[in-house]
């Protein structure tokens, strides 16, 4: 059976559901198509949900409504090497007051909630439906077909929010047919059960306060990093690798994850926990230069499908950018309906809204970060250097002390070389 809508959104993740929500609230008849048996079933991330300014306009009491785990009050970075590690932590009082700065969430719960809000606003959610093809008429997208179903879903405009590989954008001719492994990362994650009072004791938290920590130097030479986040009564522990580097290393993500969890400092954090779920996903980490065409005749692309991910080394942003782009795509469709113009030109307001938003501004600002992070020394030599300097600084064993700058230069010369240090410093300065 063929059904007609005023707009079709492919994918009920943060981008798709935000788009559907904004359009449905404006009175449009929207289909939200999801391949999982419920929204969120296929989705994982290894991250923190950051502020969602556009969504907070719709839900001013966002943190009261959304199914969140803990709000992050403490963020840390750990430089690791062998059995030594150097930690930096920021704990800010302002992070403990609403509007909170970030949360841990479970995607199967959060994504299901957001899609449900779109449904409450009037969107039609169609689950268990994998999009097979994009219908086109004279070079204009007019709908989609569903695998294993007869008929089609028709609409004058489709929003592709179907994730990192976006076959919808591919079929509409908006993304290139192949990806570069150098622009992708893969994340693997173990979800570990741990009682909430034990989490509070272990990480110095009370109530629903949360801790998020990143690790460098824990990936056996593969370019990448680790993370550990506290959920309400579980921990998310995982690793993210640059795909090209993982591929050529010959190492496997699960062996590296096991090694990471057995590393003495991490082992103490996860001790007594029970593995509940293992998950993995690709992350589009190519930054600004990876972004495909954002719009065409009758089609817009949002979220991971548009490679909207900001990986600067310190923060990893994705869901916030996805949700924001989804809402802006929805606004462009609402404008296109008013003007009854779904051509490339009619939908071009999306690009304009995006360029004016923090999404594109940030991605442009950090345009050089992906290249800067393709430097093996960041993942081996620098963590070693930091740990070695700090170890020497704190070692009091009767030997005469060296001054800090000498210590630092000696460690730099041994581990990375002065020339490399200068070049890397300049590259980081430019990128960040």
């Amino acid at each position: 059976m063929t059904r007609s809508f005023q707009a079709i959104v492919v994918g009920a993740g943060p981008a798709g559901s935000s788009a559907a929500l904004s359009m449905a609230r404006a009175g449009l008849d929207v289909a939200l198509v999801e391949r999982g048996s419920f929204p969120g079933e296929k989705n994982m991330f290894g991250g923190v949900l950051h502020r969602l300014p556009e969504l907070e306009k719709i839900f001013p009491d966002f943190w009261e409504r959304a199914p969140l785990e803990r709000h992050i009050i403490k963020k840390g970075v750990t430089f690791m090497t062998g059995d030594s590690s150097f930690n930096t932590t920021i704990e800010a009082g302002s992070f403990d007051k609403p509007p909170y700065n970030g949360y841990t969430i479970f995607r199967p719960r959060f994504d299901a909630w957001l899609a449900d809000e779109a449904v409450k606003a009037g969107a039609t959610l169609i689950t268990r439906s994998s999009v097979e093809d994009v219908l086109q008429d004279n070079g204009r997208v007019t709908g989609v077909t569903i695998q294993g179903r007869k008929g089609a879903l028709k609409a004058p405009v489709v929003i592709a929010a179907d994730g990192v590989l976006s076959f919808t954008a591919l079929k509409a001719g908006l993304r290139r047919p192949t990806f570069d492994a150098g622009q992708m990362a893969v994340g693997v994650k173990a979800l570990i059960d741990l009682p909430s009072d034990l989490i509070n004791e272990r990480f110095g938290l009370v109530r629903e306060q949360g801790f998020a920590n990143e690790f460098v130097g824990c990936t056996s030479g593969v370019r990448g990093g680790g993370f550990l986040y506290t959920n309400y009564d579980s921990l998310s522990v995982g690793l993210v690798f640059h795909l090209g580097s993982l591929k050529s290393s010959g190492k496997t993500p699960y062996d590296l994850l096991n090694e990471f969890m057995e590393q003495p400092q991490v082992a103490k954090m996860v001790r007594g926990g029970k593995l509940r779920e293992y998950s993995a996903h690709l992350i589009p980490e190519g930054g600004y230069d990876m972004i495909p065409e954002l719009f065409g005749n009758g089609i817009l692309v949002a979220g991971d499908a548009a490679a909207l991910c900001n990986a600067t080394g310190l923060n990893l942003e994705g869901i916030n950018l996805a949700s924001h782009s989804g809402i802006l795509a929805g606004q462009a469709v609402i404008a296109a309906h008013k003007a009854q113009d779904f051509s490339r030109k009619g939908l071009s307001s999306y690009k304009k809204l995006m360029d004016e938003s923090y999404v594109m501004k940030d991605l442009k600002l950090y345009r050089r970060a992906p290249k800067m992070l393709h430097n093996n020394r960041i993942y081996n030599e620098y963590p070693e250097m930091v740990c070695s300097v700090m170890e020497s600084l704190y070692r009091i064993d009767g030997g005469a002390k060296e001054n800090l700058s000498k210590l630092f230069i000696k460690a730099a010369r041994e581990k990375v070389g002065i020339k490399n240090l200068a070049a890397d410093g300049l590259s980081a300065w430019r990128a960040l």
Partner: protein
Amino acid sequence: MNIDEIFDFTSFTIDREPHIVLDTEVCVGCDSRGCTNSCPARCYTWNEEEKKMTFVHDGCLECGTCYVVCDRKAFTRWRYPRGGFGVAYRMT
């Protein structure tokens, strides 16, 4: 965590019809076979003695890694499972 016990900790609704089909003849001529180590679910195994690639779609996490790392275009089909099938995360 033992990856071979993936079905003990991650849920799947397995479709008999594979969503990914591999022309394993192409893999014989591949010199990197990055799929075998990069796949987070160990769906790809290379047998050096028999010079044979084996792919099992059952425990596929639908992450997309193989789609990107395969530089021989060895897939005759690469799509997501039919609606309602495949990996089913509960709390990740």
